[in-house]
């Protein structure tokens, strides 16, 4: 018997009337109420509005009226994505009580497709982090810390608390803990794929320019995308088909069309014998050997089942990825953060002060340590004296890395490797040294540097801890990339 992806069975059940939207929502709410005190994924819950939406969807279904593609599916949203009249905190004191005056483009699309928005999710402050410990409010805990063998949360008092990854840690956690069917998160240097890998769920970062960033608080504008997180590749494809497409309010989407919605045969094999999958040695060199082995085993299984060709390749430019990425991210982030002066919105400055100290005080008091560090470095490397040596040089490094990845993807259809070089670490383990955290991003940043579509599927578990397998595709091949992820998923079952 074919095992349907969880998202597909849920949406089938709702559309056929077997499961009402309201019942689905209540299940999720029950899970949140039971376990979120341990997981701590939510910043704000929208139960009242969610219940109203669910009731409306149920009424439409009962009356046999047409409903949207996401009808009745419960979606949670990373709190860097604007939801009208709701707090858009970005997990920062600077915006702790800021109410967004508008909906992000992607939220408009969720609503139009009858999704049920259950609430907003924690993250690293302004998306600056790889483990969700840098939220100004509280850290989110990886639900696997509490899982039993069946993958259900039973031991909420577990003493070993693992990070869920970041910066969209809570988004992955919420999916893993069944607080929602789908989550909308963002990925600037791995912020969807890393938590997907650590929490054992599926996440996807679209080709740059595929999804409108109108309504996504900026971290680094030329790197990031909003993307789906789900229990399965099907869910990612479904959500992506809703949120993607041209939006005149984000001019980087000018050449984009929305991706196809997955049909029932989405995971069926294409002519896999013809697919060439590149396996870069650099992706395995620095990885934890257990992780490397798990990923290699999974790939071997997949290749033998489908007949696709695994091609060993080398991309030496991988070593420049972290410096190129972070230097440019600092620069773009420093620019993006200039707007926070406490005057127009956000944390209130003290009254009756002179202009310059007023602004300095409110910024210093309300922006967190990692964010301030990045602002300082970004400002430093874009000053006249240092721009050539750092900022401009990093732009050259970006071109250099891109050229090598484009070469590799000219010879192969996809590139595969581990999503993260290590397994999830414990909360607090990487607090001291920022550089240590940065280095964890080595496998995920290339896709952002180059604008390539990339996703993570769970491929193994080592003890409690999931291992993620990353698939990178050619620019614009989002549907095909997620499709391959679905096939890998199937190949790992049974």
């Amino acid at each position, binding site marked *: 018997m074919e095992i349907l992806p969880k998202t597909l069975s849920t949406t089938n059940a709702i559309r056929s009337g077997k499961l009402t939207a309201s019942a689905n929502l209540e299940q999720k709410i029950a899970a949140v109420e039971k376990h979120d005190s341990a997981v701590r994924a939510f910043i704000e819950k929208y139960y009242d509005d969610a219940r109203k939406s669910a009731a409306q969807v149920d009424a439409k279904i009962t009356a046999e009226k047409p409903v949207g593609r996401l009808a009745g599916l419960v979606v949670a949203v990373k709190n860097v994505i604007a939801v009208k009249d709701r707090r858009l905190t970005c997990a920062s004191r600077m915006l702790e009580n800021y109410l967004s005056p508008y909906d992000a483009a992607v939220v408009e699309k969720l609503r139009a497709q009858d999704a049920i928005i259950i609430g907003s999710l924690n993250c690293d402050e302004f998306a600056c982090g790889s483990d969700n410990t840098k939220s100004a409010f509280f850290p989110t805990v990886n639900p696997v810390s509490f899982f039993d063998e069946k993958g259900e949360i039973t031991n909420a008092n577990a003493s070993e608390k693992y990070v869920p990854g970041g910066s969209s840690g809570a988004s992955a956690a919420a999916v893993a803990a069944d607080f929602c069917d789908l989550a909308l998160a963002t990925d600037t240097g791995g912020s969807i794929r890393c938590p997907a890998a650590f929490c054992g769920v599926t996440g996807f970062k679209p080709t740059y320019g595929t999804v409108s960033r109108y309504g996504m608080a900026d971290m680094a504008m030329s790197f990031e995308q909003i993307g789906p997180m789900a229990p399965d590749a099907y869910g990612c494809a479904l959500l992506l088909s809703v949120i993607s497409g041209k939006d005149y309010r984000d001019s980087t989407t000018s050449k984009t069309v929305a991706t196809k919605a997955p049909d029932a045969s989405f995971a069926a094999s294409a002519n896999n014998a013809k697919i060439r999958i590149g396996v870069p040695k650099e992706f395995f060199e620095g990885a934890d050997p257990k992780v490397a082995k798990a990923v290699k085993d999974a790939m071997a299984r997949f290749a033998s089942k489908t007949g696709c060709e695994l091609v060993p390749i080398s991309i030496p430019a991988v070593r420049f990825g972290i410096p190129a990425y972070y230097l440019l991210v600092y620069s773009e982030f420093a620019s993006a953060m200039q707007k926070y002066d406490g005057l*127009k919105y956000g944390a209130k400055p003290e009254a009756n002060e002179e202009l310059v100290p007023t602004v300095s005080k409110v910024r210093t008091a309300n922006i967190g340590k990692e964010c301030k560090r990045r*602002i300082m470095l970004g400002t430093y490397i874009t000053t006249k004296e240092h721009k050539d040596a750092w900022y401009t040089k990093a732009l050259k490094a970006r071109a250099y890395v891109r050229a090598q990845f484009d070469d590799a993807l000219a010879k192969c259809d996809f590139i595969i490797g581990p999503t993260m070089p290590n397994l999830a670490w414990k909360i607090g383990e990487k607090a001291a040294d920022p550089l240590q955290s940065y280095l964890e991003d080595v496998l995920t940043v290339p896709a952002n540097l180059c604008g390539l579509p990339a996703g993570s599927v769970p491929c193994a578990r080592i003890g409690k801890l999931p291992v993620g397998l990353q698939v990178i595709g050619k620019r614009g091949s989002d549907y095909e990339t997620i499709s391959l992820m679905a096939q890998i998923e199937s190949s790992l079952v049974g």
Partner: protein
Amino acid sequence: MEKKITKQDIERVASIARLSPSTEELDGLTADANAILEYFSLIDEIPDSETPQTYVLSHDNALRPDEEKKTDPKGIRRGFSREQDGYMLAPKSF
């Protein structure tokens, strides 16, 4: 990396960025900046002949027709830290 970054450098940058770190924070930031940029100076190996790349995609001109759409300003004004007769009130400069 050519030159070590000094505390004065960091102080100056902080001022430009409208941040006022404490003395201890300054020490930490200076150490971090040096360690991080020391490691990132790896990019010195990239040939200078490489063309700097800011934009990820090539595009047709993204232009829109000159049309007006009214937005309700209430949601924007409610964020103002101080307000006076519809104006936002910022500190004076004179």
